[in-house]
């Protein structure tokens, strides 16, 4: 079904929160999923996969141990693309200084790609990422994709190398509408539902501060 990008962002934020992400990381998940959807990728499916994989586990287990390490790796030997991606965006200046940032064992690597967009906008130069079978580059506005479908759907990338500045070729423009599979939407909705307070009579009467009938 066709969805607006704002719907995708709102659903993803709630789902991320429902899966135990902090609000700030849930916001990153939401912006990232929106970004991927705008470029025609199955953002909601990837996010649902990741939230199911890491459901309610402590974020520190799937976070980089150190941002100054030569290679970023997580204690659980499986790194969250959202947490590592958010850190990459936070380290945009460091990325340009170092030239590359390498990560190990990143789950669902495509979910880390939107964070390059933020880094590229901050730096004003394109940022690229490579893993086996895939190279993507963005200036924050357009995206170049050279990748096999299998690589884009990879469950885990053993090695992910981000670099800046990068070359852009074969640009892809974002679209302003996205097709979302019902199945992925329902999976995200199940996570989102955890953030809603159960309906109770007391809540219905007190919480909104208004009467139930307006026949005046």
């Amino acid at each position, binding site marked *: *079904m*066709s*969805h*607006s*990008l*704002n*719907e995708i962002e709102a659903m993803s934020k709630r789902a991320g929160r429902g899966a135990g*992400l*902090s*609000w*700030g*990381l849930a*916001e*990153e998940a939401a*912006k990232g999923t929106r970004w991927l959807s705008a470029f025609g990728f199955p953002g909601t499916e990837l996010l649902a996969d990741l939230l199911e994989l890491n459901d309610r586990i402590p*974020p*520190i287990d799937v*976070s*980089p141990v150190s*941002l100054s390490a030569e290679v970023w790796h997580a204690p659980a030997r499986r790194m969250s693309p959202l*947490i590592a991606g*958010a*850190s990459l*965006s*936070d*380290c*945009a*200046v*460091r990325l340009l200084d170092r030239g590359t940032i390498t990560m190990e064992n990143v789950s669902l690597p495509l979910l880390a790609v939107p964070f390059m967009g*933020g*880094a590229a*906008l*901050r730096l004003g130069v394109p940022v690229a990422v490579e893993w086996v079978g895939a190279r993507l580059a963005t200036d*924050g506005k357009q995206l170049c994709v050279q990748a096999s479908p299998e690589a884009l759907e990879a469950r885990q990338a053993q090695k992910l190398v981000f670099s800046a500045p990068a070359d852009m070729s074969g640009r892809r423009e974002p679209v*302003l*509408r996205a097709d979302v599979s019902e199945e992925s939407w329902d999976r995200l909705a199940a996570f989102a*539902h955890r*953030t*809603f*307070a*159960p*309906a109770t009579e*007391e*809540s*219905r009467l*007190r*919480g*909104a*501060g*208004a*009467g*139930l*009938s*307006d*026949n*005046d």
Partner: protein
Amino acid sequence: MTKVSCRDPNLVMRLARLGSIHQSRLSFMRILTRRMAREGWRFEQTAFEIDASGVGHAVYTAHGPDRSYSLIAFAHDLPAEKRSDRVIAEAWDATFTLFDGIPTLDDISRLSQNIPLQEAGRVSGTELSVSRANRSVRLWEHVVSALASGKQPSADQIDAVGYLMRTTAVYGSGKLGAADREMIADRPEFHAPFQVEMLSVYLTRWFVTDLVQHMANIRAAETGATAEQLDADLARSMGIGNSTGLGMAPFLLNHPVLFNNWVAAREQAIQAVRQVEWATDEDIALFKHLLDRSKQTIATWHSEHPIQIDKLSALRADVVLVTSYLVQADLSASHPWDALYRWAEETLSLEGQEWIASLMLEPYGALVDDMSSGMAADNTATFRIAGAMSIGDLRALLADVYTWAIETNWAAPENKARAWYVSEEKLEPRLGERFEEPIEEYEQPLAPGRDAAALFNALAHWPDEAQVSDFLLRHPEHRHVLRRAQIVGRAPYAEIRDNTISDRVLPIDMLRCKLAFFGATKFDPRSDRWVRICMYGNAPFPLELTQDNADFWVYPDQEEAKA
């Protein structure tokens, strides 16, 4: 030349003041009517297929210079027991969508299956908004029965309510599958915020006037009589009501850059007018004329809520003070508006100060109207956290922006008595008692003061030279508020500098602020978290709109008011 600064965010961004803001030249309704008049928009009713029981649809199209937009209205026969203004309602007297262009019969047929369902329906990228409205039962019946019996309705009864229908939600920007704002934001007519929603409501008012006449005609015909035509002046005196609950309060907190841009535009306008060195006789005359007309609005502003009754009584006392000030003040002296404002700040209630601050912009359209071009926001650039910021700089930023919050004792129950949450019932936003209801685990991040103070404390043992990126890796729980703090560092009016979860918080202050930027008047709180207002009261109808009446309609015409 006197240098006047913009007002300090620590003064402006307090809830009590935000909850006292008045509409101004920069209000979104007035931006829209000025543009449509200037560009000579053309309006037509292209369908009105409503049966004797009041059920059917109608289409109203607005033709701009490059594009047309159509309000598709569906009228329903609503049983009284289902009439609720809350989000949890499931049926309404009328439902609407603003369509991008001119709808085909297929579009109308598709939308007739979805718009009446509101949140339970789906729309597409050709729909720009989805909204609904309920009748004011009292006034609706009075107007229909008066007209049907060959009489005009009572002006007093109309004044007492102000509208025939009130909207209970106007959804835009991608909601329910509609077009995202990004799809239309590059169109000049939608550059300013909420222009889609304001256009939808403007056309809704026309439809409602046609519908009430239609229902009166039908009732008269049942007895073989002919109904009276609703007097044009009476019709114009009515606006569209709006009934608003807590949904608007999170909006201001969730769109900090946008909110900053609204407030900053108004503050820059106030600053620019305070810097005017000499006022011309025409400027002074226009100000005094509109001040007199504005007094009518204040005189006929009713509320039964104790908070607003107190504020209104202070405002009415302020009107007397302003009147006597203007008798002795010399507005032809240098910097008259700065003198007036400074006197107001020392003398008047917050309602009175904000009333004068908005009103003194009126003679200066040429100076301030362009400031509306800065009121929209694209959040892309501000969303990313600047991870290279030092902890020392962050600490200084927090100490500057969130002074009040850092000094608040957050262990005291009264300072965090409330929690914002979303109910699973149609996702209705609600505010609960943290220590009395099982809601804390569902709390939304709508207490930036508390969260900023927690961040400030968490930084205490971090060295100044450490970087934000390293802190966030260890503390993702502070990521949300750290982003906010960085935004406020660049956009000083982005943050409400007050406690949004205390036992004394009045959510209506946030609703009032947002609605004032829309251009609403006559705020009438129903509780501490629910408010009714009137939109487009006294505005020319689309077919009457000219450049002469497109701007000052918000101030009632004196002759009319006396008649």
